């Protein structure tokens, strides 16, 4: 087994194990903290794919930003702080069945797709190309995402100022 394969399996194991903790832990803060190794495992896989810029953004936005936001929200609300909150309700079996079906579908797709071997070589420095792509062929998607985030921001401010 090559070093790359070893690294991949180790990273995948870290991501999956932390993912299981996120879903099953009865303590909300534990779930949120377990997100960090899960996201860092994904970051490692990005690095294996030579997508360093994406990896940096993943750590900055997800591990450093989104997780902190989630922790912040949990600690500021009543239910989260230290209480044991059951993460399952009576719909557990249905959810499990759906998850199993989705997993089966994904595995089937992943194993049956004839994955194309990449032609050509990767550029050594990707941020410029990513920027060109955002403002060139994918400008509509990029602007759409920006508008969505702006609407979310305005909505959040509106909700927060409701008491006045």
């Amino acid at each position, binding site marked *: 087994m090559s070093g790359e394969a070893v690294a991949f399996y180790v990273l995948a194991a870290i991501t999956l194990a932390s993912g299981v903790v996120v879903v099953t832990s009865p303590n909300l803060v534990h779930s949120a*903290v377990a997100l960090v190794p899960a996201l860092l495992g994904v970051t490692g896989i990005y690095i294996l794919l030579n997508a360093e*810029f994406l990896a940096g953004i993943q750590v900055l936005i997800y591990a450093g930003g989104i997780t902190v936001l989630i922790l912040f929200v949990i600690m500021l609300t009543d239910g989260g702080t230290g209480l044991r909150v059951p993460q399952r309700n009576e719909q557990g079996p249905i959810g499990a069945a759906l998850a199993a079906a989705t997993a089966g579908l994904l595995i089937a797709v992943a194993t049956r797709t004839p994955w194309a071997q990449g032609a050509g070589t990767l550029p050594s420095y990707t941020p410029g190309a990513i920027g060109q792509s955002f403002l060139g062929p994918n400008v509509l998607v990029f602007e759409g995402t920006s508008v969505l985030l702006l609407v979310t921001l305005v909505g959040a401010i509106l909700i927060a100022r409701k008491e006045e």
Partner: protein
Amino acid sequence: MPWYVELARAVVGTIIIFSAVAIVAAMLGVLLERKISAWIQSRIGPTHTGPRGLLQTVADTIKLLQKEYIVPQNADAVIFASAVVVVPLAALLDYVVLPFGTTRWGPLIFRDLNIGVLYFAATSSLIVVGILMAGWGSNNKYALLGGLRSAAQMVSYEIPIGLVLVTISMLAGSLSTVTIVHAQSRLWFIVSQPVSFVIFFIAATAEVNRAPFDLVEAESELVAGYFSEYTGMRFALFQLGEYGEMFAMAALAVTLFFGGWQGPGLPSVVWFLIKLYALVFVFMWVRWTYPRFRIDQLLRFSWKVLIPVALLNLVVTAYFVIVRG
């Protein structure tokens, strides 16, 4: 390079970075802090241990090693213990992309990543997670308040730092720290980007939770903030993380604005250390001179002053970069 060589290199690098940061940043940093604060307040500071009190922090470290680990009742033991690892680890990871000097074989840097400054921003943002874990896991209201204040503060001040990093990498045409240093061989960026430097310095002071932005661990309100409940070596590791992060921020400022290791005559590493310690001195000078902000003033300052100014600076710089070609 085979992967086990890479792995061995990573392990050796970690040990070197950890020991260097522990000795140069944490031990010497604490001693400098005490000496400089004493000088500013017309005292003499530690004098008894070693010549002129030089061994004071060594003695303190040995003392802390012998202390008992206390886990508070009803604390979340897992989170409480793992927070200790997250904070210093995130600070140490910063050092991977900092160039300390140059040799015949190339720049003296652990790894010249092509996303250097982005990597720095990403790893230093992980410290907040550790601080929140420590604050919440201690099951102590002062610690929790300190942790929450820290999260609000660091998330707000990461944005101006990010904007400054974008401005500087735009000028240098690269995110790599080594290329940014090379781009300053004729003119340091402090000359062409003074506004960026002021924004960076203010935001970095806030990011490392030092006065006048130290209400995360404001002694008079919150005991020691998020690490109030930690004892012995765990306490020392938080101190290590804090001083490690401060030195890393100072080193990044040297790299971004003061031409990194470049300078006439002296060896490059010496130049780097001179600039680094000069900036660390300014950090300490500010800490012992200015009173503390209130949390609302602090957040308002970031969102209503620093971020708009940084954005404007970014746009103006972009304009000049485009016009110049």
